[in-house]
């Protein structure tokens, strides 16, 4: 099939960008979206032009590197699919496709379709862990975890941290990402002990990184390639209230 692509080109963070038209010819249905871009890039290089820069690595939908907005939707319209796993059979001959980078205040463009997502890392650094040392831990079966809790924790832990949720949110909020991380650890007995400290630290970091507020649009869940549920946002809110209550009680007793 033949396609017309409109691709965001931007030389650097401080440059102005624009959409540029490219033709993609003889695209096979079996190609992935990124393989289609590879072919376009090969053509550009051969013609002495600069190829389009985009992030990718595993191409298996798990590393969270790939980050393209396809026709206005992060990772494209196919449900629960990263753009590296999106195949061209979902498009048809003659289609026009618009390809843009993640757009959010917290994600400055580095070049073309590559953005800086380090703000997400800083949320993690603030408290996205259980404070355990290497060594000296109990046997893996010493603390039993109900299947239900293990599964819920895993549902949250599946987040690949790609940032599609943030790119899809009209406010550029990192709520679903943070909620998934908070819920994963708070659901497990090992993570309960620090749950209150963690949720406060992570929500505070989130607020300080240029992400917007959550006003319950739920665009995040709709685009999440791993189907992370917004129920975890409710869980984060509950954890946060609980932490505030603990703090209030402690202060009153002091």
């Amino acid at each position: 099939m033949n396609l017309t692509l409109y691709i965001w080109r931007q030389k650097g963070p401080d440059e102005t960008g624009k959409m540029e038209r490219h033709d993609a010819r003889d695209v096979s249905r079996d190609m992935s979206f990124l393989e289609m871009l590879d072919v376009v890039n090969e053509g550009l290089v051969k013609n002495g032009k600069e190829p389009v820069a985009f992030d990718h690595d595993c191409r298996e939908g798990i590393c969270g590197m790939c980050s393209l907005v396809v026709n206005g939707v992060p990772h494209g319209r196919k449900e629960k699919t990263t753009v590296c796993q999106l195949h061209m059979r979902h498009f048809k001959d003659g289609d026009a496709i618009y390809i843009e980078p993640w757009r959010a205040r917290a994600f400055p463009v580095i070049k073309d379709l590559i953005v800086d997502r380090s703000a997400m890392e800083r949320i993690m650094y603030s408290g996205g862990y259980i404070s355990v040392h290497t060594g000296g831990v109990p046997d893996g079966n010493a603390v039993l975890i109900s299947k239900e809790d293990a599964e819920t924790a895993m549902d949250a832990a599946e987040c690949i941290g790609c940032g599609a949720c943030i790119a899809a949110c009209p406010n550029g909020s990192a709520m679903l990402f943070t909620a998934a991380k908070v819920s994963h650890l708070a659901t497990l007995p090992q993570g309960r002990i620090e749950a209150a400290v963690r949720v406060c630290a992570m929500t505070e970091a989130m607020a300080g990184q240029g992400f917007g507020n959550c006003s319950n649009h739920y665009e995040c869940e709709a685009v999440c390639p791993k189907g992370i549920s917004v129920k975890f946002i409710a869980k984060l809110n509950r954890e946060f209230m609980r932490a505030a209550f603990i703090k209030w009680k402690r202060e009153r007793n002091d």
Partner: protein
Amino acid sequence: MILDGKCPSGPLSEKWEKRLHEMRLVGPANKRKFTVIVVGAGLAGTSASATLAELGYKVEVFCYQDSPRRGHSISAQGGINAAKNYPNDGDSVYRLFYDTVKGGDFRSREANVYRLAAVSSNIIDQCVAQGVPFARDYAGYLENRSFGGALVSRTFYARGQTGQQLLLGAYSALCRQIKAGSVRVHPRTEMLDLVVVDGEAKGITTRNLITGEIASYAGDAVCLCSGGYSNVYCLSTNAMGSNVTATYRAFKKGAFFANPCFNQIHPTCIPVTGEHQSKLTLMSESLRNDGRVWVPGKKGDKRPPKEVPEAERDYFLERKYPSYGNLSARDVASRATKEVCDEGLGVGPGGRGVYLDFADAISRLGEEKVRERYGNLFEMYEKITAEDAYKQPMRIYPAPHYAMGGLWVDYNLQSNIPGLFVLGEANFSDHGANRLGASALMQGLADGYFIIPYTIADYLAATTPGKVKADHAEFGKSREDVDGRTRKLISLKGSKTVNELHRELGKIMWEYVGMSRSAESLRKALKLIPELRAEFWENVRVPGSGAELNQELEKAGRVADFLEFGELIAYDALHRNESCGAHFREEFQTPDGEARRDDEKFCYVAAWEFKGEGGEPELHKEPLVFETVRLATRSYK
């Protein structure tokens, strides 16, 4: 030179304990004076960084992705082994050790493998404590599944995303240290040279992938945790950026490269569909727990799989290897698959595929149970092929997957260059000539959490912290070399793209240095690779400049190294006149087509020394001494 692995003496089960006792320690107040450079943030690099920082060392960790949590370990699907014997099915440290030595076709170092098996249980405990949500049963206990090459169930897993969960666990430990200020992360930074001062590894030279800046970092020791090199085959299950650059440039600085010809070709990957293909996708080995591998018994049978009656199917793995059946070791299963396809029995485009069928499992367990076990793998298969594996069998074919070879290290994980340690897939590892499934994650984490923290101290304790600074002349020279190479790549302005040349290399490697090799095919490769390399250095086209984000330049640097490294693989494969594990030389096989080892002549690690570009590398040997295990013919029958 005869190399010494420096294994402790004494009974196998006491060696590590003995070494722990012998090694020097660095006092708590002194640790913070030492800087350790860690290249790579997969499981090995992240676990090492977090643990070293927690002990008090200053750690600088580098990766080419935008975050340590995206290291290639994240794509590991199936699981991680540990000798917990929770299922009470007869597992033990010794059995895991023996299975691994046997799986590696008796080409690994006994003492290392035993240590790996011995610490395996601690890894699971550590991960559980970090919050890794391993699969649990209804009573809340950890679940296990089986993997190839073993008759016990010892594989722990988190759905089909075990690597992701383990990496996120290690990353969380790293986050804690980042917050504490003891680790500095350098994402989007690629190591392009090792700096050796007075014979010891004292730093690295890197390129910042956003600005193009070439910089040097000095440290008291360097740990390379940069993963495997399967992308030398162009198409592999590895991530697009996986490379040999970090280890190869260390090789050029004097580090020995061990057993480069031991490359694992994984039996269950989605077959190639066309020229545009950029990578191959693994379908986890865990699927062989419940999936049955077969081909039609007659050539040219074009019927849809459902219509081929049971009696006309050849379940060739079950037929050839009745006791391990579909769970035979990887190299064995891959070769058997290639064989039936060579005979013309293969299915799918080009006849390069066999069926992996779940119909029996679905009727035995129900679709729901199968979905629970493998749901995400079936989804992934469907995304790529548009076929529903609940309704029709998957089609699979072998693909390059894992590098057993890597930089040579002694028992302490130190290379022949003092101060240079190598961890995870990047070292020549504990897997001999073939790795068993679910053992790489185990090894990466064992190296990072439980081995390097002790062994690095033994080296550091005998050095003066901060002795070499980044203003040392060697660093300047290294930066000049890296800069010169970058400029050269840009200046060529030829007519072929990096991808084209990489694909050509991949074809040579797959055809002549692939799943089965012969002296003739290897000699051919040794002729073709230098020709292609010469073409690369005349005719490659790298647009843009070095002083900016330039992905073509990144790729060009990596492919340039593969073009040298491919030759090293061929040399190694040609010199090893035996078949063992994944290294199958057509001239050396038993009458029924199995690998024929030659323990008399080749029971050693082949460690190669760089002797100048285009020059033949020099072979050094580390004899493998088996004190406990009796060398036997490996059989999965």
